C-alpha cells in the first residue's frame, strides 16, 4: 500500500521537482524511510539519526502533527497523506 507524501520546495531538488511522491509503508517512519529509494539523499535532510527527525522538520499525517499522534510509529492507511513542512513560526511573536 502506498500513500502520498507532499514535498516542500526546499526538498524538491531530491525529487526531480515533484511536489508529491507515492511511497509504500505501514507507519509514518516506514514511509519516510522509504522516501530515499525515490529521492536519494533526502534522508540526510529529514533524519538526524535512526528514527530521529531533524529539529526543523515537522511532519503532518493528514492535518495532524505526528507529535500529537505516535510520532514515527503512527500507523498509516490507504488514502492518508503525509506533509513535510519546515518548522518556522510567526504570529506574535513574540
Amino acid at each position, binding site marked *: 500500500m502506498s500513500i502520498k507524501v507532499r514535498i516542500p520546495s526546499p526538498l524538491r*531538488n531530491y525529487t526531480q521537482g515533484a511536489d508529491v511522491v507515492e511511497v509504500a509503508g505501514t507507519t509514518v517512519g516506514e514511509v519516510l524511510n522509504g522516501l530515499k529509494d525515490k529521492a536519494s539523499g533526502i534522508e540526510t535532510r529529514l533524519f538526524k539519526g535512526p528514527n530521529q527527525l531533524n529539529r*526543523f522538520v515537522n511532519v503532518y499525517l493528514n492535518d495532524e502533527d505526528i507529535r500529537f499522534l505516535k510520532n514515527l510509529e503512527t500507523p498509516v492507511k490507504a488514502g492518508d497523506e503525509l506533509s513535510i513542512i*519546515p518548522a*518556522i*513560526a510567526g*504570529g*506574535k*511573536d*513574540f
Partner: protein
Amino acid sequence: MSYVIGLKCKECGHRVPVSPVHVCQACFGPYEVEYDYAAMKGKVTRESIAAGPKSLWRYKDFLPVAEPKTGFFSGFTPFRKAVRLGKELGCSDLWIKDDSCNYPTYSYKERVVSVAISKAIEFGFDTVGCASTGNLANSTAAHAAMAGLRCYVMIPHDLEQGKVLGSLIFGPTMVRIRGTYDDVNRLCTEIADKYGWAIVNVNLRPYYTEGAKTYGFEIAEQFGWRLPQHTVVPTAGGTILPKIYKAYREFIELGLVEDNGPKIYSAQAAGCNPVVKAIHKGIDIIEPQKPNTIAKSIAIGNPADGYYVWHAVKDSGGWGESATDPEIVAAIKLLARTEGIWTEPAGGTTLAVAMKLIQQGRIPKNESIVVSITGNGLKTLEAVQNDLVQPEAIEAKISEFDELLARQGSQNLSEAKAADRASRKPVSVI
C-alpha cells in the same frame, strides 16, 4: 551604508546571499542575517544612533534594509519607570517598555513589519501577507496600505473582534482559517511556496525577525545606554525574546553598553506554555501543545523559534514561568490601575509572570527590571468585559447624582478594602 554580509544558517552555518529565502537548503534550519561587526566598530556609535530619526530606523545600521520604505513613525515608544506599580510589588527599579502605543496599530509588530515590508519592496514583491494571531495582521494590513501593496492576512477563525476589524479596515483580503494559529502558519508555509508572495513571517522571516531587535535597542538607549539586569518578555512564536537578547549582545559587542550579564525571562500563558515547560524540564525539546487561553495573541502551541527562546533564557541565566487566565486578567487590571496602561492579555501574562518571578526570589526586588508590554488592551475587550461592572444609568438630575454618590460611597469603601486585600495576596505559583 549597509553592514549586511548575507544570510547564514543558524544551525549548520551554510551561507547564501541576501534573497527571499528562509529555510536552509542544506539542513532546513532557519537563516539569520549576518553583519560585519568589525566594520561597524567605531562607526556606529551612541552619537550616530542618537542623531537618527525618532523611530525604529535610528537603528538602521543593525537592520537588513538598504532604504526604509515604511515605519517612519513606528518604534521609539515610551520607556517609563513604573513607580506606582513598583510600590505595589515592592520593587525600587521597575520599568515598562510600552509598545501598546506603537504606531500605527498599537503593538510591537510594527517593528518586524516595517523591516519586512521595506525588504519586500526592495525584492520587488507586489503582494504581502502573514499568518497571524491578530496583531501582526493589523500591522501588515496597515503598512501594506501605506505602501500601496496587495495584502492577504490569514488568521485563526476565532479571534477577538478588535483584531478582526482592526485588519479589515485597511482593506486586505482576510482569510479566516478553521483551526489554531499553528494550522494557519502551516498553510501559509504552503501558500508562500505556491503563490510566491512575501509572507512576512514565513519567507521574509530572516529580515522580519531582525526588526524585533529594535525593542531591545530602545530599552538600552532609553535606559541611559545601559542594560536592565532583568527583562521579562512574552513568548509566542519565539521571535522577540531571542532578538532582544541579540540586541543587548550587539550593543555589548560594539561597546555601546557595558556587559552586566542581563538576564532574560520567558512569559507564557498556562494554557499554552510549551517553552516554559521545556525550560522547567531543562531539556531543549519543545513539545507542541493545543492552546487553550484567553491570551490568544500568544497562543502558539508549536513555536519553531521556541528552541532559540530556550537557549537565550538559559544562556543569559534567566528563567520562565506561566500565568493562568485569572492571573492574566488581574495583572491587566493592576497595570491599568497603577500605571494607566491598558495592555492585552499578552501584556497581562508578562506582568503576572514578572510578579511570580519576583515572589519566587528569582528576580531580586532591588535590581533593575523591565516588563515588556507588547500590545494594546483596546483590541481585546472580550478579555476583561466580564470582570468590569457596567455602571448604572441615572437621570440628568443633581439629586440622582447625589443619591448615587451616597450609595457608591459606602459601596466603594468596602470594595476598596477588598481590592486592597486582593492586591496584597500572593500570586499562587503553578
